[in-house]
């Protein structure tokens, strides 16, 4: 007995010692930044305290009995084995408690389900392994991917301490920006497999399902940055597709919208300009790191049996149009990049892989040529890449 006590004490010390070393851990659900998330938190605490009270009563009785009704204390066993009264009581009381939980839960459920009277809509599409955001009201449209610093640090044996990366694995290249105090309706779907969109501070998560649309709503009360992750296992990089939502004051948001529209125009004109092969290769390297390297590896070696190598690949060293075709439409586990990348990025990475990673084909393709091919793609996502 003494030994076990010592062991227990040592473990407790170890546990408390370790956790005091870092201060930013949390124990409980966050209250979040919306009315819904606070309601959820309230219900969570309500049920939690009910469980605590029941636990104290049941475990209290059990441990009283374990202590006093021992053979070593000389306690003689009584031989009762049923009591209709008490059995009815401990069936009815839990039923009443359940009703006390079900009523607030039902109210909250109805509230969360009500997407009526929303002021704007954002369509979220899950991809392996990034998020696509489309603002239905003003046409802003972009992809959001794990940021470069996290992506470098998370490679096996990267030698980079994750603690030195700000918001490791919870940061993206292009966050979702929303105005505060605005009822936003989200529409969810997916392009390949099922994902799930979760920002804890908003109070819910919703699955994104290929071929189907789900809905949910939020209205963020405080300006700030809110982080979350994909929560439905979606393949190799499931752990590496974070979500960042920046809630801005309404004026700031309007400014951001104007800025995005300007950027879209710039991008369009960049696609029509003539690029040199060197420019494309330089840009393509970054695009490759952000979009391709997680499967085909940083050096283009791929992973035997699962992801083909880029280096010396017959597709990459063969006809450029066939290569572009495959990248546009995807194949098997390879996503269709046709709509995911801008014409410039697409042309850049297509050129890069033919002239880098150990390949020396020597040709290139212009963004304008890609743009022509992209406009021939079907409008909506989710076209099926038959196995």
């Amino acid at each position, binding site marked *: 007995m003494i030994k076990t006590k010592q*062991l227990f004490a040592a*473990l407790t010390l*170890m*546990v408390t010692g370790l956790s005091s070393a870092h201060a930013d851990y*949390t*124990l409980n659900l*966050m209250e979040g930044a919306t009315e819904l998330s606070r309601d959820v938190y309230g219900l969570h605490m309500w*049920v*939690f305290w009910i469980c605590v009270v029941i*636990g104290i009563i049941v475990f209290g*009785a*059990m441990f009283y*009995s*374990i202590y006093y*009704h*021992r*053979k*070593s204390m000389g306690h*003689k*066993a009584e*031989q009762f*084995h*049923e009591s209709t009264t008490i*059995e009815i009581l401990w069936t009815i009381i*839990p039923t009443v408690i359940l009703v006390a*939980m*079900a009523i607030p*839960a039902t109210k909250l*459920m109805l509230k*969360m389900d009500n997407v009526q009277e929303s002021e704007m809509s954002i369509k979220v599409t899950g991809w392996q392994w990034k998020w696509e955001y489309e603002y239905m009201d003003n046409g802003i449209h972009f992809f959001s991917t794990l940021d470069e610093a996290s992506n470098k*640090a998370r*490679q*096996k044996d990267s030698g980079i301490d*994750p*603690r030195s990366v700000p918001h*490791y*694995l919870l940061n993206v290249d292009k966050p979702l920006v929303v105005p505060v105090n605005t009822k936003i309706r989200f529409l969810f779907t997916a392009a390949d497999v*099922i994902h799930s969109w979760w920002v804890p501070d908003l109070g*819910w*998560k919703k*699955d994104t*399902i290929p*071929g*189907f649309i789900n*809905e949910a709503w939020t209205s963020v009360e405080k300006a700030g940055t809110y982080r979350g*992750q*994909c*929560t439905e*296992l*979606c393949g*190799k*990089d*499931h*752990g*590496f597709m974070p979500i960042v939502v920046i809630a801005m004051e309404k004026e700031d948001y309007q400014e951001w919208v104007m800025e995005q529209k300007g950027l879209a125009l710039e991008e369009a004109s960049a696609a029509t300009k003539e690029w040199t092969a060197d420019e494309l290769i330089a840009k393509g390297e970054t695009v490759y790191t952000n979009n391709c390297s997680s499967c085909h590896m940083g050096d283009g070696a791929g992973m035997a*049996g*699962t992801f083909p190598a880029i280096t010396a690949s017959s597709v990459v060293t063969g006809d450029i149009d066939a290569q572009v075709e495959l990248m546009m439409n995807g194949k098997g*586990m390879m996503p269709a990049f046709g709509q995911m990348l801008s014409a410039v990025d697409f042309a850049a990475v297509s050129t890069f892989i033919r002239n880098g990673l150990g390949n020396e084909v020597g040709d290139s393709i212009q963004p304008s040529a890609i743009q022509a091919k992209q406009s021939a793609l079907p409008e909506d996502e*989710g076209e*099926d890449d038959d196995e």
Partner: protein
Amino acid sequence: MSAATAEHDDHHDHGPEKGLLRWIVTTNHKDIGTMYLIFALAMFFVGGTMALIIRTELFEPGMQFVDPQFFNSMTTMHALVMVFGAVMPAFVGLANWQIPLMIGAPDMALPRMNNMSFWMLVAGVLLLASTLFMEGGAPASGWTLYPPLVLQTGNALPFAIFSVHLLGISSIMGAINVIATIFNMRAPAMTLMKMPLFVWTWLITAFLLIAIMPVFAGAVTMLLTDRFFDTSFFDAAGGGDPVLYQHIFWFFGHPEVYVMILPTFGVASTIIPVFARKPLFGYSSMVYATAAIAFLSFIVWAHHMFTVGMPMAGELYFMYATMLIAIPTGVKIFNWTATMWKGSMTFEAPMLFSIAFVVLFTLGGFTGLMMSLAPVDFQYHDTYFIVAHFHYTLVPASVFILMAAGYFWLPKWTGNMYDEKLAKLHFWLSAISVNILFFPQHFLGLAGMPRRIPDYAVQFADWNMISSIGAFIYGPSQLIFVYIVYKTIKGGTGEKVTDEVWEGAKEQSLEWTLPSPTPYHTFAEPPKEVPTMSTGR
């Protein structure tokens, strides 16, 4: 009658065959039970090794040891091996050993099928394990095998599906055998409401198995045709629906988790009265509660899917139905507490594991109740909170009770006493480390850590490290159990046990009326009387 049997006796009363053949062709319920138990224990360590690989990678943030794809294979295979290779076969092993002994039958009703179902299990699990070495790796889509993701599996997919078919056939045959045995082979005095609760819970479990295994086999067959024969059951582009798979899967999957917990309840209800030296409190309410839980398990499946976007009516229905499970489960926990109340308790290893089960399973029950509330589950779903919840209902529940059952019946089976000191060490190491392992996972989930991720944000680092330390203690300390079992079989402490082994056990159940060690053939003639203390009638 007795004269005829006596004449047959020298013909029938032979021991087992010699050598390896004994185990391959045996139809003896005790031999088959032993093989199931040993196989399950071996798989417990295989699945446990996979868990330790997972916890090693999660010890610190950053990717140090495995690739994300292999990590996903590990979470998938850990679950499949533990569910289908360890916990389920272990309970089938206990059923094989104990059901005939507890109802006064000479063997299982269908001994040859019994042998076949064991060897099919071995084939199924080996086939599943072989996928680890295939091109593209083992399945990495989680044990739920959700499409479309699972359709991206490499060469392993058809093998994994065929393995599920084999495991399903094996389970169904085992279940048929249990039902046939219980309905046809009870001693005349053993009426249904005099059966020990372990037999009752297994009878109900067997019906669950027969109902659900074909459903699972159907679901995975649809995956097979979607992948290879151009059907579109789960493909929206062809008019199908990926969520349909989830409905079918969880129609199987929810009763499946009760397949692992109902026999657990049965063993706990058998052990606690013996060490409290009292009859079980509320025998008939225990039977009805088990039946009620089994029934409810069929109508609550979509609580695993609150976030898939069901209609409001569906969400509310599945929420209410799920909450109802708390009532019969509560009755069971109150009954166990009342059984201990005013008893004369001693705390040998089986009792310690059983009490830990009641306490820690109740914690898992509390989190289950929290998750039944759909709007709050939107936060909990697919986080480490869920991982903590179902591990509390499986490890310190099913696995602890399997250990308890081992210590409880091993002296009966072998005639030797196990080493109580070592067993207590095993218990305390397990009970403490299992909480270090799983309790912090509640905090991780609530703080926002999704499940099935190979790497995590740094604010989750501390609790993950503590959880991994718990795993590093819990895993190896199970080797103590292997050592104790081995020593007990080889002679134990040297102290020969009495027939009833535990004080007063004869009053509780039939197996303790037999000699220790249990002879190779038992109850060639049914017992005239059955103990009534455990049933209170």
